[in-house]
């Protein structure tokens, strides 16, 4: 008798458990109206992305966006390219020797901008890059070039949930020593940087000019001591970042003391 009773108890508990677990399981998904279709809630996951895999009807846009990012001067002249900061067209994972990743960036806009007390969307951010960092007037909003860049940035962010925290974006946080020495920076520059970026900072075929007429403007985020130092610390010399925190501070202070184009607004 006791055996039968306990078996029944087990069965009842199992049924109730099943009833409860099923909706929980469903809770991981969002149901559409017909109750069939499911959008899994992804986590942002970094993986290799090949722009060439873009679906056919936006393929040409994505590819030309990619081309603009890695070969900006080919389209707009000048000596700077998006890829100078966003290595490999932003397809990297950031961090050490990874430049500033753009993979997933599209999922984080529109957002409040650090510099201005307003929200900027992706297109505005791209335009800011053009006018402040590349010192080029941005292509018009509906132009194929702009549309291609936006399509590319979205495509390389595919599967990243909108407004999720994408950990590899931006530069890794670091607290730098706050006593930059520009004079010492000059020495660091000639030891570690001048070989590629030239003594007068004008760069060579493969490297961007760091100051002078062809470099970024004073309104670029790179003209900010902390941002630039962090970039140098994690990425320079390219492919083999090895400067100390103090050296990074010093050399960026040295580079910031040089002359560069003045941003005249949009």
């Amino acid at each position, binding site marked *: 008798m006791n055996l039968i009773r306990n078996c029944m108890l087990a069965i009842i508990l199992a049924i109730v458990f099943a009833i409860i677990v099923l909706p929980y399981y469903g809770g991981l998904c969002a149901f559409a109206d017909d109750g069939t279709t499911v959008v899994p809630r992804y986590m942002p996951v970094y993986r290799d992305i090949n722009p060439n895999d873009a679906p056919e009807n936006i393929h040409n846009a994505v590819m030309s966006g990619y081309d603009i990012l890695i070969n900006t001067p080919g389209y707009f002249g000048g000596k700077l390219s998006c890829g100078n900061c966003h290595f490999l067209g932003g397809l990297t994972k950031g961090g050490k020797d990874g430049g500033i990743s753009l993979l997933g960036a599209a999922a984080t806009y529109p957002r409040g901008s650090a510099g201005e007390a307003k929200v900027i969307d992706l297109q505005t951010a791209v335009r800011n890059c053009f006018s402040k960092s590349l010192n080029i007037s941005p292509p018009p909003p509906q132009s*194929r070039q702009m549309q291609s860049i936006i399509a590319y940035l979205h495509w390389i962010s595919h599967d990243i949930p909108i407004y999720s925290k994408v950990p590899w974006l931006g530069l890794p946080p670091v607290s730098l020593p706050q006593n930059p020495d520009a004079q010492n920076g000059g020495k660091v520059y000639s030891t570690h940087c001048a070989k590629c970026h030239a003594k007068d900072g004008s760069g060579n075929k493969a490297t961007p000019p760091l100051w002078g007429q062809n470099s970024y403007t004073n309104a670029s985020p790179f003209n900010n001591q902390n941002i630039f130092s962090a970039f140098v610390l994690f990425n320079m010399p390219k492919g083999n970042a090895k400067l100390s925190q103090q050296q990074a501070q010093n050399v960026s202070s040295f580079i910031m003391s040089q002359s560069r184009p003045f941003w005249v607004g949009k």
Partner: protein
Amino acid sequence: MNISQFIKNILSRKWYPAVLRWPTALFFVFLVYVLLYGRTEARYNLGLSMTWFLWWSILPLMFLVVGRFWCSICPFAMVNDLVQRLVGNNLPVPMFLKRYGAWITYLLFISLIYTEFILGIVLSTQISAILMLTLATFAVISGAFYTRRTWCRYLCPLGGMATIFSKAGMIELKAQPSICAKCKSMGCYKGGENTPGCPVFLVPRISENQPANCTYCGNCVKNCPNDSISIEIRPPTRGLWFLQKPKLEESFLAALFIGVGLSLSIMLRSQHWAEGFLGIKNLNLSIAALYVSVLAAPVLLLYAVSRFVSYRTEEPVSIVFARFGYFLIPLAFANQLAVATFHELLVNGKLSLYNIMEMIGLHRPQSATALVSMEIIKVFQILVLLAGATMSGFLAHRIAKSNYKGKQVTGAFIPFLLLLIFIVPCYFYFYFAEPEHKPTEHLQSPVAAMPSLSFLPPKPENAPTGIREYVLAGLNIMAETSRYAPAFTGNALSCTSCHFNSGMESNRKEGGISLVGVAAVYPKYTKRHDFSTDLVTRINDCFKRSLNGKALPVESKEMVSIVTYLTWISKDIPIYADVPWLSAKFPDTGHKPDPLAGRLLFGQKCAACHHMDGLGTKGAPPVWGQGSYNDGAGMSRLDRCAPFLLSNMPLDYPDLSPDQALDLCAFINGKPRPTFMEKI
């Protein structure tokens, strides 16, 4: 026959309470089924509207008038009893439950409210269903292992509220001590041949816990061989006047309830007050922090005042606290009434009715769901709160009078009166404070503004501080385009004319064209541009074509606001995911659209709202003429217009056939409308 005699008569009947329990339980099963498999939009789900807008609203009132009568017909108790009869092991109640059960109950209750704040139980069919089933599981466990209704008496999250409200309630079950003293059978507790004993562990003779826990199931009446039990009707709060043994946990709960009431007013009105509370960036955590502080404040205040009084009366502070805590019960009750009953019941009262009408196949009425106008509700709420406050003051005086003598009465009474005078304005302040950003009301129905959580756009007002201003500005433009973006709008339409509820509906019937997830699917190829087109450009296409206006400058506040709004309501959707509700299906019947048939249909189905001349009325936009969309708009194309009509028109009870939708579109789009200037 007087009322108490009448009630006692009912209680002694064999068919009571089974005659009420079974229908309730069956109806409950039906409601859970509706919650699980019914429509997922909050306001269209009968399960949600019945549970939260009807049952939950009436519950406090029931506690006051008929005590815990609900508990005797509660479906969870039914589950408990059935399982117990089948497989019950009848273990005794664990000691720690007897000792700490009340505190666990409170903890469960406040966690439930917290869950409501962060997940929105009331608006989510899924979470509500999970809640119901979880409670049912606990009832099963309790029934399977423990004796009687252990779960109900010691653990049910509603227990706390039930206890203090019923204790102040209007009904009491009493036994005559003189008769009971001679009794040896104790049938009331142990049970008789046909009827079990008291399900909630009460002995009627010991009256102390009686009104707080009795469920009026009538078992004791049926089992008593000496007819010792009687029912007493008393004025509300009378039960609290002469308490012999005040309980610390009940006083604590009364104060806690004041905090719960405050937090309901604060969070449900304007959750953004929680944002960044104590500098915590995580919204859920800051809500928790604010919630806990609001809960703690009244308890600490009561403690402080009790401490002060205890110095003067030279008693331990715990005794004063336990004794006087009860005086807050009427105020807590009044607030529950103002928030739950008046707000939910009167504002959404007809919702359940509409949902039932829809379910049995009648036309769903379009009128508002409120039973009385909002102004009257507000007046009611003020009056109820004031009445509750007065009762509380009176009760404090009563308690002081029955415990102290002479000067000490005023000495003990005044500090508590001051406490009351401090709390009541807080209530009013939080109750009537308006949120800083008031979202626009989109449709006539007050609940219409609530997005449906199950499929899941986040609420615009929950956007993080950095972008909230833009999200709300975007929402305003969506809802009333010609008012908030007048320079760019060329007609009387708004985004919400096609994208109902500002795009926050899914693409269901009557949902318009959903915009939840658009930020994830653009840029995409469009024929118009024969190239990849980003969201900004697409929005401008709407402005230039459907709104017959001008393109917004790319970096204008209006454009960024709209983009931010659309991105926010697409939150958590992976970029380039396949968003199922964004695609419209239209069966290909091979029908040749016939404008003449369309004209006839228009008169039958559309003219009532859109007017026979197509110029629209206050609630319905113009569908042709200068005030309508131009001939470059998607809606002016058969393949866009027909699916829209098929699933949305006539509004709220779409019943067109695909062929009829095609006919109507052919007719409507054959009518004159503005010309799109950039058309090639």
